[in-house]
């Protein structure tokens, strides 16, 4: 349903009312923006000297680009590992053997239910006592992100495989394929297409969550931009927040658009009967893992 059916094509009176509403809302939005502008102005946040560092190449070379690389490095490593984790545990949950299926299910459910920051803290403090001294910030961020997002992806994989029409695997068995072959040749190729949008949305969540590294002093974009740089250029805190905010939003939005585009493409394609898989809800026991069909559900971070 498109949102426009909520109201009729406006007649003369409604048009006048809509124009009035538009004027009022323009005034309200402008007033809100002006209020923010004045608030910043009163504290001298628009002065040239605190924005000036962002025009110099060295600011970008020394602080922002290395920070961005730190963020992308953690996100890339965690994305690859999480997809591996998701594939392994998602398929393990579909196993016919209870001794594989049940432990995999418990692991996936537990790691999805615990707050990610607590997991990262735990790994960060546990690692030195297990593996000797050193800087484990990167390791803790990547490992924490892998366990959490990998568990969510495991649910996506499971839902994707279950979303393939049952006739497909039955036909596979009927022509004498083994379980392994049915999964590899019949189910997975179709499931991957259905899963792509949900996987990409989860990668947006993963990229956003790398910012948790800020709390354990991992050198990521948030850390260089928001902690190290304002210390070097006194008073540039708010400009720094705005600049790195724009970088994060641009990165994530381009990934989100990719997900939307993939989803639309998947929905259009005739080869796929089930439609794209939605993101799993927070609890498997209450219906996640069922193919939801509607990909309109928002990502949940």
């Amino acid at each position, binding site marked *: *349903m498109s949102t426009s059916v*909520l*109201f009729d094509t406006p007649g003369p009176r409604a048009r006048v009312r809509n124009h009035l509403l538009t004027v009022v809302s323009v005034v309200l939005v402008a007033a809100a923006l002006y209020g923010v502008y004045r608030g910043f102005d009163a504290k001298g946040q628009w002065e040239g000297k605190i924005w000036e560092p962002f025009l110099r190449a060295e600011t970008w070379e020394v602080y922002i680009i290395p920070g961005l690389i730190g963020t992308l490095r953690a996100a890339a490593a965690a994305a690859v590992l999480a997809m591996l984790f998701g594939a392994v545990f998602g398929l393990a949950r579909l196993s016919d053997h209870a001794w594989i299926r049940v432990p995999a299910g418990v692991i996936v459910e537990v790691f999805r239910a615990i707050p990610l920051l*607590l997991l990262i803290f735990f790994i960060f403090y546990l690692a030195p006592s297990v593996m000797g001294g050193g800087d484990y910030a990167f390791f803790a961020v990547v490992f924490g992100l892998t366990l959490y997002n990998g568990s969510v992806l495991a649910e996506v994989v499971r839902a994707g495989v279950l979303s393939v029409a049952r006739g497909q695997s039955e036909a596979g068995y009927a022509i004498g394929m083994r379980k392994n072959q049915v999964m590899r040749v019949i189910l997975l190729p179709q499931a991957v297409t259905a899963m792509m949008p949900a996987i990409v949305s989860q990668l947006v969540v993963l990229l956003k969550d*790398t910012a948790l590294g*800020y709390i354990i002093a991992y050198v990521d974009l948030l850390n260089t931009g928001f902690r190290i740089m304002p210390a070097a250029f006194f008073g540039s805190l708010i400009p720094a*927040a705005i600049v790195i*905010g724009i970088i994060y939003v641009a990165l994530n939005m381009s990934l*989100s658009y990719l997900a939307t585009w993939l989803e639309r493409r998947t929905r259009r394609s005739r080869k796929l009967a089930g439609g794209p898989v939605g993101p799993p809800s927070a*609890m498997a026991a209450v219906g996640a893992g069922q193919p939801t069909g509607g990909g309109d559900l928002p990502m949940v971070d």
Partner: protein
Amino acid sequence: MDELITHAPELARGFLENVKLSLVALVVSFILGTILVAMRVSPTPVLRAAGMVYVNVVRNTPLTLVLAFSALGLSDQLGLVFSDQPETNSFWIVSLGLGAYTAAFVCEALRAGINTVPMGQAEASRAIGLTFFQTLTMIILPQAFRAVIAPLGSVVIAMIKNSTVATAGGYLLDSAARMKIIFDDTGASIPIFLGVIAAFMALILPIGYFTGWLSRKLAVVR
């Protein structure tokens, strides 16, 4: 096991802080999220655009940045202060920041719910002469809310888990901050970690089951 017993009282107080933060953020996010979704489906293009910009910017910004900015930028530099007590002030900063962040997800969940209401419902209400506001409040939203109970449950669960990021907003009394302080002191302790996550799971799992049960019970039969 001994560490857990020694530190249990302060961890329990920390967990209670997470619950309090979540409750405030819950109220804020549901009110703001409902306003946002009304903006996003309204006949006024300016409001639609404003709602869309808010949701897309907030949804794509890390919560850590939102909270750190609220604490260091809004509160310390721009003078948005709720209380002279630094702890009370950061409690409100964090809970309102978390609420403003979660509102974007609530808005998206509700909008997905509106999309599940069949077109005939809106058309029928227009046919009997209801206005936009009446259509929205009497016909569409009641059905949309029922369709989104389970997704909203997921949003609430994510919010409770996100309340641990309060540390980034300078609120150091919640369970994550307390756990970190204890770990700084004694090193990583498996019983303490298990104790804290058990508390979170004890809160989260019933919410998941309850919203799942409620959504099945209230589902609109079509």
